[in-house]
């Protein structure tokens, strides 16, 4: 039965639909179907991702410029154990990369990037639509593996190889301090809570996982065990955490580690011999229609110490459904980095293709705006919020 009213809406929809231009898509559809078939066959036996850059090798050189902004030297080559695999790439341009037209970016807070040379790391910020990138402060080279900026954009944390967890202001290094020693900075690198007051950390010896109050330095162990957990992320609204379990599965839990629930998608990856290398960000909550960006390796490839690399898939935490980016792209793997920032927008997609752009996605999945990323940021590692 049809709805009983809204005639103006019906008429307007019919009028709008009338404006579409007729085209013959039969040939294009058949070509796409061939790519789909080829991708399905290839994907089952071959590598599944393309890594353009990221992680510890995102920016391999710092070249000083007149503006003082570090200049990254193209794409990285991937860190040890995270070597890129070859993906089936269709030579034909994918129609799914969409039109290049941009709409104005909404007012947002800054995005943060890391650039690195052989001896140092630099924290860089850029606010979409608000001018040039800014060099904010230097960081030690160790920070490239685990530095994270608080969601309020004020603080940066990092762990040095001696296990010291450092906290410093984003703007300068004058008041850096050590929050705690004996912290794991490699597999469960400290991650910020959504309110920028706590860090989820693991003790290097003993492996206890807990939250660390950054104001007082108080460590509170979680009541639930997170033995073997790797690469945790905190949901944007603070109601959940997700981590990679010791067997490679993905688990979503309450912030105190209780209520652990496995995401079924991971089982499929494991069956295919892939491994989840890192989680990038999680929007929404553990129970809602939230999404999780993750990076999975090629079959039988070890994910040693990867973090914040170029994601190649997304899944819904509610049901484990995988995003359809690869299939929709007609066999091409989308190369992007996803971050998660602040109150103004919930998600950033960084398209790493030829014309790099940043797409801003709101909490309801609505498209808020898109803007080209400055050339200076090419190859930089986009940090999660």
């Amino acid at each position, binding site marked *: *039965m*049809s*709805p*009983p*009213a*809204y*005639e*103006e*809406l*019906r008429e*307007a*929809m*019919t*009028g*709008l*639909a*009338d*404006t*579409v*231009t*007729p*085209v*013959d*898509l*039969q040939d*294009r*559809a*058949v070509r*796409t*179907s061939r790519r*789909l*078939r080829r991708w399905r066959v290839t994907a089952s036996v071959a590598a599944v991702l393309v890594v353009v850059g990221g992680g510890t090798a995102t920016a391999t050189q710092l070249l000083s410029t007149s503006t003082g902004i570090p200049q990254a030297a193209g794409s990285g080559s991937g860190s040890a154990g995270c070597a890129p695999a070859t993906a089936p790439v269709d030579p034909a341009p994918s*129609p*799914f*990369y*969409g*039109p290049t*037209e*941009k*709409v104005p970016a909404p007012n947002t807070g800054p995005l943060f990037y890391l650039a690195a040379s052989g001896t140092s790391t630099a924290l860089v910020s850029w606010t979409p639509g608000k001018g040039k990138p800014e060099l904010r402060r230097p960081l030690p080279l160790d920070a490239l593996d685990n530095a994270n900026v608080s969601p309020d954009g004020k603080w940066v944390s990092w762990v040095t190889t001696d296990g010291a967890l450092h906290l410093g202001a984003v703007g300068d290094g004058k008041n850096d301090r050590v929050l705690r020693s004996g912290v794991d900075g490699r597999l469960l690198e400290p991650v910020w809570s959504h309110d920028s007051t706590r860090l989820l950390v693991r003790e290097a010896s003993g492996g206890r996982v807990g939250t660390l109050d950054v104001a007082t330095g108080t460590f509170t162990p979680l009541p639930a065990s997170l033995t073997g957990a790797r690469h945790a992320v905190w949901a944007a609204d603070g109601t959940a955490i997700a981590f990679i379990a010791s067997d490679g599965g993905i688990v979503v839990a309450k912030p105190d580690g209780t209520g652990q629930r496995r995401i079924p998608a991971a089982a499929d990856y494991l069956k295919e011999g892939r491994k989840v290398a890192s989680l990038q960000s999680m929007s929404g909550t553990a129970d809602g229609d939230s*999404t999780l960006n993750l990076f999975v390796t090629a079959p039988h490839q070890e994910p040693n110490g990867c973090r914040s690399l170029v994601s190649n898939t*997304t899944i*819904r935490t509610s049901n484990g*459904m995988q*995003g*359809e*980016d690869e299939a*929709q792209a*007609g066999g091409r793997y989308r190369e992007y980095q996803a971050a998660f920032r602040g109150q103004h927008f919930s*998600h950033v*997609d960084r398209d790493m293709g030829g014309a790099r752009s940043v*797409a801003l*996605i709101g909490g*309801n*999945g*609505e*498209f808020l705006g*898109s803007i080209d990323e400055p050339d200076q940021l090419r190859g930089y590692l986009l940090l999660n919020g």
Partner: protein
Amino acid sequence: MGDSESFTSFARDRTHALLRSAYLLTGDQHLAEDLVQASLARTYVAWRRLDDQGNAEAYTRKVMYRLQVSWWRRRRVRESVTADLPEPRHPGYDPTEAADVRLTLRAALAKLPPRQRAVLVLRFFEDHTEAQAADLLDVTVGTIKSQTAKALARLRAVAPELANPHAQERNLQ
């Protein structure tokens, strides 16, 4: 008739009808073409498995709506509202008013999340029942109801003249 010929016939016959819905879903000619192309491609892949090729359009539409609503597609769609609207095709229309309505609708739809947009198209353009819409989107009827209410509320906020529930009642009086 072989598979290729029968699919060609189906695609040529039904592409424009699919494009009309896809245009409402995406708000963009090129994105609509991409969406229909992708949906037809999946239909072609499944062509031999379709129990009844007479249901091919229903299958294609189901694929199309689910593709559009899928999480990843949401983020890829880059919409913009332009003033470049084609001339109205129906004589007797006030061209200025008709163009204004289309422009308003297009802008209003662009502000909706894909699922709400899909629900509106299914309910008010394709005249599907709540149960049919639920089946097409693989959600519950309750979700269709709630999404419809939310979509109309949001539409009412930006284009109250389009989301007036009493229009037909007035016409019937």
